[in-house]
């Protein structure tokens, strides 16, 4: 089963490039506070100007994540929530008219337990264009990569400032985009980035034939704009998830007006992150 049609992620990056814009890629933890709200937040993210979105699968042992996303995962996992439930957020959002590409962010074990073949066929079924698996480095990804290629789902790799000689190998095999980790450490809001970040991004840029995006620690438009000239997209996770956390009382309110206000607060926050213009 080969997919001849273009992947939506590639199309969106091509469009943005033509307009000289930088992609804004928000991350949301699915099921925080519940799956219905997740669908609404995905809609809100698109309305706020997101170019594509990462849907995060809550996991019991989120090794790559800092406290904000850990807490979101813990909240989401208070109810039984399966990987397929998280995928269904994408198909439901699509049904409600969301057009941007969906990227699933999941640790490896839930995908492995589902079975990799089934995992990818469900990704196709629910309308995903890409997948990020933070604990699946190059050395372990052969089988997953082969199925991803065959099903036309982009397996988006991460590179870190510590990757050094590995950058070349990772970037040359990348599909969709290369996810550049801006700093050592786990996900989370931070004031400073790795000191070698600019030369690191330049190295990745030289090695990659696909777009490069920066994530881990970006929490404001100023920070997003700082990277806008050096990359094709910025990923914002913890800052948005923290905003969701702040809005929990509203998001979980029975009263429709209060609830809408919660969704709009998150939407306004995401809208404000969008880099104004590409500088370079």
């Amino acid at each position: 089963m080969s997919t001849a049609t273009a992947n939506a992620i590639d199309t969106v990056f091509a469009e943005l490039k033509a307009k000289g814009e930088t992609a804004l890629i928000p991350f949301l933890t699915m099921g925080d506070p519940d799956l219905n709200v997740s669908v609404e937040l995905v809609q809100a993210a698109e309305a706020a100007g997101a170019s594509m979105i990462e849907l995060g699968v809550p996991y019991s042992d989120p090794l790559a994540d800092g406290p904000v996303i850990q807490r979101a995962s813990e909240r989401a996992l208070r109810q039984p929530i399966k990987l397929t439930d998280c995928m269904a957020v994408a198909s439901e959002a699509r049904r409600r008219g969301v057009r941007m590409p969906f990227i699933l962010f999941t640790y490896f074990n839930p995908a492995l337990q589902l079975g990799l073949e089934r995992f990818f066929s469900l990704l196709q079924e629910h309308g995903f264009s890409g997948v990020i698996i933070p604990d699946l480095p190059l050395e372990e990804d052969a089988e997953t990569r082969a199925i991803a290629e065959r099903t036309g789902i982009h397996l988006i790799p991460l590179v870190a400032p510590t990757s050094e000689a590995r950058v070349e190998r990772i970037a040359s095999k990348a599909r969709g985009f290369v996810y550049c980790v801006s700093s050592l450490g786990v996900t989370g809001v931070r004031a400073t980035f790795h000191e070698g970040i600019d030369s690191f991004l330049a190295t990745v840029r030289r090695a990659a034939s696909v777009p490069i995006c920066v994530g881990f620690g970006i929490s404001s438009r100023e920070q997003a704009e700082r990277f806008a000239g050096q990359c094709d997209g910025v990923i914002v996770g913890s800052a948005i998830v923290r905003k969701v956390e702040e809005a929990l009382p509203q998001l979980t309110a029975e009263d429709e007006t209060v609830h809408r206000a919660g969704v709009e607060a998150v939407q306004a926050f995401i809208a404000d992150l969008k880099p104004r213009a590409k500088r370079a």
Partner: protein
Amino acid sequence: MIQVPDTYGRFGPFGGRYVPETLMNALLELEEAYNRYKDDPEFLDELNYLLAQYAGRPSPLYYAERLTKHLGGAKIYLKREDLNHTGSHKINNALGQALLAKRMGKKKVIAETGAGQHGVATATVAALLGMECKVFMGEEDTKRQKLNVFRMNLLGSEVVPVTSGTRTLKDACNETLRYWVSHVDDTYYILGSVTGPHPYPMMVRDFQRIIGVEAKEQLLKQEGRLPDVVVAAVGGGSNAMGIFHDFVGDESVRLIGVEAAGRGVDTDKHAATMTKGRPGVFQGSMSYVLQDEGGQVQEAHSISAGLDYPGIGPEHAYLKDTKRAEYVPITDAEALEALQLLSRQEGIIPALESSHAIAHTVKLAPTLPKDSIVVVSLSGRGDKDVEAIMPYLGGESQ
């Protein structure tokens, strides 16, 4: 015998390196450094000197005559890792890795700990080598093992209580890995078991295999033959891998790993990874994992903080699937009973972890002929557990 692991750190389908990219270079550097020094005469001289003169090796292989007579079956020998400096087998690995860290030019070390035995061992070697040390320990365990927290502080280490997730060993490991991701430039992670990403399962096994090497030599000297059975408790599985490894090629020797069944394998309060788990990826490697249908890792339970872990080292998974070793569960209650039995029969108070191995021996020995020999890994001493078990034994103590 196929040599395991392969160059990818694979023990059959198990093992590997499932970690964030940020850590990959650190693991590759570690593997390279380990391969450079593991056979280096100078490194081995220093390690062997410290194992002998500082840790007190070789640890005795003691014939537990009263226990043997009490049980009325196989002869029981105890490999006395409890007599090592710091009170458990953990010092073997802590010394090996700390010397490696020193050669790699790292001045800061970190470690996770459950019962506190590995934390104390790491704090000890950090003091010995003048390194800065942080130990991550589940908040729940800092309460269960107050004395060990104090010991680590006394040795100059900082104990970081982990409040995420289950607040036990599993999340202490997660937090140590997260800290390492952030400080990988100048910090060495002394991982305490045969778990985690390659090369840890191999390296920790190699540093612990002295337990089995000595036991074999000592038994050959004392009895002129190999044991029939070797029994050891398994949480992550370092003392078991340590005592098993030199016997893996001796096919007549039965290898039995004893895992914690907590309140019973049919309850939801146990740590019986082999009995109730299935293969999955957890904390950097593929092995058996206690998990739900969707792959979420489940909370483990054991009276023993050192066995309270939903994973197990990948080489154990390999030994299980190739049927070279068997794995059996022992409940909290059985372990407590064994702890008291050994205390009264032999004047040895075993650690709760090791009490699981004793408890299985109590079941097994009477079923074996009197001329058969069981070697049990007495991996640690029970002093650290005395306070924690007092409430359980309150009704029975005289």
